[in-house]
């Protein structure tokens, strides 16, 4: 009888536990990260009697958390990727919007500026056309500034978010370390039984941490999880959490990257070893901001370089050589913070066609300077001696070094990163727009031949005698002298090169015919120089002369758009994977209310039955008692 009672009681207790667990499942149906729990029942060992064994009831062997640890691992990895790609796609999308919108992009003002140049070419002395040209230049410069400032703001935003993200990560790692401690302790106390709810909490925190920075885990024997960055640096070891901090870029103190604090100073985490949102931000900086700034700056520097050169090759309304139209941007140079020497580096743009879009690191080994690509580390060919007389020439810039650099010192040169903010309009007087060619030709009206000048072009604007008058005199039908000296063979249509300009004489000159070339005077309505200027937008300028300004703008739009597109696609794909993982996790670990209801009915009925057994035991006992009493 006591067997029956004890069996019934064991069932009552077991089903009570089961109902309690069902209750807990139902209560946590909406708790993020909660894994449904299941009571494992087993029969208690039977008692041996002579005729055999009689069962002695049921017992709860374990309350199990239904979870697929492989799935959890994959979900953790997916959270890191999704965090990184979401951040990248959002941020790249912002920049893409700015660059591809006609109202904020560079294409439209660039086009208007060159249209205004055509306007001056078509009516060179018109004050309205000249003012429109200067206005167009100012609009273009303003747009360069606006875009650069947008990129700067995004860059600053990355810094701010890095700092905020670091605080989040540190809070999470501390909680995980504390949970590790508690889980190890409770596992020990529970003789190997898992503290289910703590495990769920830890998994949930890990998901959050993974989404922030991207992590991998290994499990320790005591149930604690060790957490590492994707590059393998420990964030949590057992109950110890490392402290994440931001550290400044060795070249650019305003730029932050991530590091782990340690007694020996911060240990940098390579940007490539950071996943999650923080990794997305760092990647955004590398893949979007830096290239966009460099490309935008290259457009600005190339434009200023070419426009100024073209101005110098012409003559303005005052009859003078043209002066700079744009304030020419200069490359930014950053000395590494731990340089020990007093060396200084100055750089200027010397050849837009060789300008790259990568930064350059200049290193001094004690005797020689070496230039490397900052992104790839590849050694760049460099000529010259680094002196003013013979500057280093590397990647389209010329570099002079001064002071005394110590061995191992290095400098970061960003050829065009800040060019878009530095470019400005240097010309204010519309009459100083050099629309005219520096020289003009005239055939003497006494000439009896029918030869006439073709179109002049400037081959070397820096020739000191560019504007010197010269006379071409025909000493025979096919020979001519220049300024009374020399005897040159004449071929109709072949270019004659003198003093940095060239021109063809077409037709048949007669002996004694004279042709004069002299400087263009003031007030000239010639448009020769401005025509060339207006065609600069389509002239090969970058990448060895294969890419024009217009193509450069097109490339910039495409490349920013393409990064955003890639990030969007990858983000969508990762999002689908993440949803799938989450669905899978839900299908395994999530609570189904119908299932719980069914289980509840099942255990309720079993409980009622067990209660009947106790009741029967009681009645049996009572029968026996009354039998004895009576």
């Amino acid at each position, binding site marked *: 009888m006591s067997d029956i009672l004890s069996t019934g009681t064991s069932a009552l207790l077991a089903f009570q536990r089961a109902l309690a667990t069902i209750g807990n499942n139902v209560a946590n149906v909406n708790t993020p990260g909660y894994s449904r729990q299941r009571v494992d029942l087993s029969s208690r060992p039977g008692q041996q009697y002579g005729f055999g064994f009689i069962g002695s009831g049921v017992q709860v062997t374990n309350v199990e958390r239904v979870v697929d640890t492989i799935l959890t691992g994959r979900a953790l990895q997916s959270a890191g990727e999704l965090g990184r790609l979401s951040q990248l796609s959002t941020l790249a*999308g912002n920049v*893409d919007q700015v*660059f*591809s919108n006609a109202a904020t992009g560079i*294409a439209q003002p660039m*086009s*208007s500026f*060159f*249209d205004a140049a*055509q*306007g001056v*070419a*078509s*009516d060179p*002395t*018109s004050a309205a056309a000249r003012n429109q040209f200067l206005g167009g230049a100012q609009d273009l410069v303003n747009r360069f500034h606006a875009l650069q400032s947008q990129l700067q703001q995004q860059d600053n935003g990355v810094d701010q978010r890095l700092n905020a993200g670091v605080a989040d990560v540190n809070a999470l790692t501390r909680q995980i370390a504390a949970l590790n401690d508690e889980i190890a302790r409770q596992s020990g106390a529970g003789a190997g039984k898992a503290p289910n709810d703590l495990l769920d909490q830890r998994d949930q925190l890990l998901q959050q941490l993974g989404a922030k920075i991207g992590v991998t885990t290994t499990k320790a024997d005591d149930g604690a999880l060790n957490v590492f960055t994707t590059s393998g640096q420990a964030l949590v070891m057992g109950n110890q959490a490392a402290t994440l901090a931001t550290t400044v870029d060795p070249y650019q103190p305003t730029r932050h990257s991530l590091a782990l604090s340690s007694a020996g100073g911060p240990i940098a985490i390579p940007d490539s070893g950071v996943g999650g949102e923080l990794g997305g931000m760092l990647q955004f900086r590398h893949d979007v901001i830096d290239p966009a700034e460099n490309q935008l700056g290259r457009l600005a520097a190339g434009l200023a370089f070419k426009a100024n050169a073209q101005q110098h090759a012409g003559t303005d309304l005052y009859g003078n050589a043209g002066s700079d139209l744009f304030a020419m941007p200069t490359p930014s140079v950053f000395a590494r913070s731990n340089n020990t020497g007093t060396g200084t580096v100055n750089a200027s743009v010397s050849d837009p066609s060789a300008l790259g879009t990568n930064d350059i690191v200049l290193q001094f080994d004690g005797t020689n300077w070496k230039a490397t690509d900052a992104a790839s580390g590849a050694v760049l060919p460099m000529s010259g001696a680094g002196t003013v007389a013979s500057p280093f020439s590397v990647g389209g810039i010329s570099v002079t070094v001064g002071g005394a650099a110590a061995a191992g010192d290095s400098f970061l040169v960003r050829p065009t990163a800040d060019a878009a903010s530095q470019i400005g309009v240097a010309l204010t007087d519309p009459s100083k727009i050099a629309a005219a060619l520096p020289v*003009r*030709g005239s055939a003497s009206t*006494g000439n*009896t031949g029918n030869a006439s*000048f073709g*179109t002049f072009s400037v081959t070397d604007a820096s020739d000191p005698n560019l504007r010197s008058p010269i006379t071409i005199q025909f000493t025979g039908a096919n020979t001519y002298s220049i300024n009374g000296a020399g005897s040159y063979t004449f071929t109709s249509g072949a270019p004659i090169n003198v003093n940095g300009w060239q021109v063809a004489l077409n037709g048949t000159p007669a002996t004694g015919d004279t042709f004069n070339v002299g400087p*263009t005077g003031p*007030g*000239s*309505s*010639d*448009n*020769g120089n401005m*025509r060339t200027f*207006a*065609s600069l*937008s*389509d002239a090969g300028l970058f990448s060895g002369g294969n890419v024009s300004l*217009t193509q450069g703008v*097109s*490339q910039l*739009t*495409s*490349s920013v*758009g*393409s990064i*955003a*597109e890639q990030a969007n696609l990858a983000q969508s794909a990762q999002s689908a994977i993440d*949803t799938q993982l*989450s*669905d*899978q996790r*839900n*299908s*395994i*670990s*999530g*609570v*189904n*209310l*119908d*299932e719980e*209801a069914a289980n*509840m009915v099942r255990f309720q009925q079993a409980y009622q039955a067990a209660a009947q057994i106790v009741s029967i035991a009681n009645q049996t006992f009572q029968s026996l008692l009354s039998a004895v009493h009576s």
Partner: protein
Amino acid sequence: MSDRVSTVGMYSQALTAMLARQADVARAQLQLSSNSKLLSAADDPVGAGMAVMLDRASAELDRYQTNAGSVGNRLNLEETALASAGDRLTRIRELAVQASNDTQSTSSRNAIVDELKQIYQGLIADANSGDGSGHYLFAGSQDASAPFAQGAGGVTYSGDQVQRRVDISSSVAVDDTDPGSEVFQRIRSGNGTFAARAAAGNTGSLVLTASSLANPATWTGGSYNVTFDGAGNYQVTDASSTVVASGAYTPGTAIQFAGTSLTFDGAPAAGDSFSVKPAPNQDVFATVKNLIDAASAPNSTAAQKAAQRNGFYAALEDLDQAQTHLIDVRAGVGARLNTLDTTATERDAQSVTLKTTLSGLRDLDYTEAASRLSLQMTALQAAQQTFQKVHSSSLFDFLRG
């Protein structure tokens, strides 16, 4: 998909699906309201890059059209000025023929001279034509001030010989208006190759009646003098006084040497001579001035009459050259105007192609987008309705009571 679905999973799946449908709808709506299938370059990076280039090309075409309009305007004005100058030269030639008629009295000739002087002024005004925006058409690059001015020595030109070129398409540029020096000044005189002119001190009644280049192959381009001895003979000497031809002079019979053929009339006095030189350039104003001088010269003696007739002969020859030259220049302007027209057609065709390509890259297919929107709306509604249906029942509902 396993057989088991958790309650949260069902909600989140339904929710994810609804959110995705909503995003689709929002996107279609944005495309429809902006009439653009590219909302940003990320939608089609290559296409967006191409659109930048095509936009630029399209803007350039618009600009070229403006250029063509303004240069066309100037060329039309040049045409008008040249037509006017040509008409004046025609009238001058008529007057020259009239004035050279022996029947003219001194007073009638004076009336002709008065008219010639008027036309002369008109011709200068033509050469100083403006383009209506403060620039002179025939001044080269010095077009802020009038290029032709009358002075003691005749009309002087203060412009230069610079001729602008204006781009009217990416590959075609046309010359702007011609410099005045090339229109009115650089005109070969005489018969276009050489000019035979009477010496100033001739005393006989010798007049030139015809001069032509009989044999261009033997024309040397040198200078010659035809001298008459008054006794019926002539001789031709070259620049170094070498006699190259000589013979008996017969009025009305051509004297030929060095490829030239000259026919004289009248009686030369001893020592009378004609010079034969490669035709120099002479501006049209000097030509008309010479005509006026000839017409107003005294003609009482035989020598004066002969000088006047020789003057008329030279003036008519020079006028013919000037008229031909102006016609040539006008033809050149006409050719450029023609280029403007053909290029305009070309530009229009290019513009249509560009705009079609751009539209294909960027513009939305409304029918497609509208039907897509309605499809997506249906999908969204379906998602909402199934959500409502699926989540309205739970086993707990049946356990009540």
